[in-house]
């Protein structure tokens, strides 16, 4: 009978697998899959993000009955931040012709970049993934607004320069980069190296191996030895709180420790508590609930119990970032409907919609996100926009605005992007030339 059990199991397995395509027939509506990571070592940042994303889209369904009268079909696929599962999710959702995909992991984004053009599914990696993919002429299907990691690093330099009294004052200063030793963490290095040459500061690198995320004493001993004047933290998950605690341990001045926008989770600063007071993190979305869009989410979704977000965590930094991500999706869809004249749009239309994306002050007001984020504009050749961000400051219990909007050093970033894009296309023999025509921005 053991045999029978095995046979039965195999039968069920086979049946289920062959049944998978059946679900592929998405009902009438715009299918927006969300790759989530509510599990695994990075769940801490994954959960709020995907909560924000789904809540906003559901809010649109509840409030306006979708976009342009078409319901949005929101479906999560759990990746656990594991590339293997991510690819499986991709294959699964691909069958249901999604209009856009948010991989939410650099590891998953990289393999999807070449696939996007083939499968005609735009990839929206909001301020993560491959910086070079901001070059629309090489990567027509990849979008990473509002800013690339390189913009982020340049904003950090700009901010530091400002505090020192002018970028030229950075000459001879030591600037440290504490980063997760993985492609994600390494992203800012090329730009910082370039800027180090231009402004004559010394760049010190402190890689933190993934396995040592919570065991960083050696890196911070090095920092204590080198005494860098400023530190940029390109960390993730459990690495950030550890780094902040270690910084506090060696009495590093918190207002000189600046995290990129993925080092701005409430869970990152909270464990260090008062020790983290004054810690700064780049940010391109505002924190808190006193924005109409967040209020609507509370009103139509959370209070109606149609969300899995605990009410007290609505308005947290990464939650709001999720919301912003969905705003971009929604605006993209709206644009797509405009340029294509169709209600039920395809991935192809969505690509055009995103390429003509232009969320200006007025538009932000309309969607109730007045001052919630900086205006952003994406163009055919520029899939990022290199938009402004600001410094969020940890006051010991929550994030507060720590600076005005900071524009990136676009003149420095852009050339690097283009050359990097060229390298990428060169390295990947047979990289397709852009054939997609450009719509003019709306």
């Amino acid at each position: 009978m053991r045999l029978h059990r095995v046979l039965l199991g195999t039968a069920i397995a086979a049946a289920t697998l062959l049944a998978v395509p059946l679900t592929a027939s998405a009902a009438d509506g715009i299918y927006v899959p969300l790759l989530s990571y509510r599990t695994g070592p990075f769940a801490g940042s994954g959960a709020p993000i995907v909560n924000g994303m789904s809540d906003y889209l559901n809010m649109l369904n509840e409030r306006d009955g979708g976009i342009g009268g078409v319901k949005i079909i929101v479906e999560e696929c759990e990746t656990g931040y594991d590339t293997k599962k991510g690819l499986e999710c991709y294959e699964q959702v691909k069958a249901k012709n999604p209009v856009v995909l948010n991989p939410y992991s650099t590891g998953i984004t990289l393999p999807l970049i070449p696939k996007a053009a083939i499968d005609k599914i735009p990839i929206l990696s909001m301020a993560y993934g491959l910086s070079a993919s901001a070059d629309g002429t090489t990567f027509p299907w990849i979008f990473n607004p509002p800013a690339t990691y390189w913009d982020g690093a340049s904003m950090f330099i700009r901010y530091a320069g400002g505090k020192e009294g002018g970028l030229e004052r950075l000459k001879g200063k030591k600037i440290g980069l504490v980063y997760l030793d993985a492609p994600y963490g390494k992203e800012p290095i090329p730009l910082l190296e370039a800027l180090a040459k231009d402004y004559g500061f010394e760049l010190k690198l402190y890689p933190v191996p993934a396995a040592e995320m919570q065991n960083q004493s050696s890196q911070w001993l090095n920092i204590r030895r080198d005494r860098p004047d400023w530190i940029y933290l390109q960390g993730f998950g459990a690495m950030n709180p550890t780094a902040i605690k270690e910084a506090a341990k060696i009495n590093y001045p918190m207002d000189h420790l600046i995290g990129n926008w993925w080092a701005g989770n409430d869970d990152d600063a909270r464990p260090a508590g008062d020790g983290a007071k004054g810690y700064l993190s780049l940010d391109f979305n505002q924190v808190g609930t006193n924005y109409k869009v967040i209020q609507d989410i509370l009103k139509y979704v959370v209070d109606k119990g149609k969300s899995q977000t605990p009410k007290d965590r609505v308005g947290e930094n990464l939650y709001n970032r999720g919301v912003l991500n969905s705003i971009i999706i929604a605006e993209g869809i709206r644009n797509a409907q405009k340029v294509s004249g169709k209600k039920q749009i395809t991935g192809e239309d969505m690509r055009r919609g995103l390429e003509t994306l232009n969320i200006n002050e007025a538009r932000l007001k309309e969607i109730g996100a007045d001052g919630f984020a900086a205006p952003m504009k994406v163009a055919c050749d520029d899939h990022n926009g290199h938009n402004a961000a600001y410094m969020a400051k940890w006051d010991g219990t929550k994030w507060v605005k720590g600076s005005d909007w900071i524009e990136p050093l676009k003149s420095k970033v852009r050339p690097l992007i283009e050359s990097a894009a060229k390298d990428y296309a060169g390295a990947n023999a047979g990289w397709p030339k852009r054939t997609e025509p450009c719509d003019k921005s709306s």
Partner: protein
Amino acid sequence: MFYREVGQYKTNYSADMSVMPLLQDRVGIGIILFIAVVIIPSFGNAFFIQAIMIPFLVFSLAAIGLNLLTGYTGLLSLGTGAFMGVGAYACYKLTTYFPGVNILIWIVASGFFSAAVGVVFGLPSLRIKGFYLAVATLAAQFFLSWCFIRQPWFYNYNASGAIEVPTRTLFGIPITGATASDTARYYVVLGVVVAMTWLASNLVHGRIGRMWMAVRDMDLAAELIGIRLLRTKLLAFAVSSFYCGVAGALLVFQWYGSAEPAVFDVNLSFFILFMVIIGGLGSLTGSYLGAALIFILPIVLRYIPPHLGIPIRPATVDHIQYMIIGALIVLFLIVEPNGLARLWQIGKQKLRVWPFPY
């Protein structure tokens, strides 16, 4: 009833010593191959081929590799992931240096590099045994992953720090890179895996296989009948790593299409080890069964609730799935410590005597 060797007399030793003496087995393999070569590509959808069959075959190959080392030679290794990594990175370096040469050649050639690395890290196996050796192989795992991350030479100094797969063709048909069709990738993987499985089964049925098993069962006695321990163990490491290396190359070039170093971390090693142990130590069939159970079962579990229309969050499914897998592993070990392969044997036995209980 169905599975009778009665009347199948062997009149000479070579026939008697063939890998599959029984007609039924040969027919069975024939059917399986037919399904794999004809049915699946023509009826399986993209998801089935790209997300299930290709990974399944890749993992099976890796599992066979580890099984040759752990199952046949009795050397427990936790470095599989790294050895697969060596294969992948070797293949990447080779094809970027010599884009002209056919990628298939490089995929196979990459195996030799991981074999060499495997031999180096296999050297301690003469003095170290059991779990001590297992932990020692972790040194390989962590050192190699460190190389992939910290030494830019491995990923050609590119900005992303990951390796990307260029498009390469076979007879003008792209078989790697994004433009390669699922079917094309599938056939390449299938071809390589089937061929290497055949070679492996030849190996384990012959003198070398006997020497490996002798070392596994009682290394001292093996030495006293004239088997050189170090040589035999190193050969096992080399062949095993070769298989893992090719599997790694296939993983990146035929499945992922791009990989960051984290892909080859220690978890991959554990993953493959599960397959080998659950599938059955010292059985090639077991390697396939193990890969199927460990890799495909979670996917199935994931899709069952939506099909039954159970409103349950993906994350929760994921959690429960972990619990089920964990529980199943323990259960399997309790029910049949010798793995699925043994269950398979029992199954065949039952078929032999069917319809009678015994």
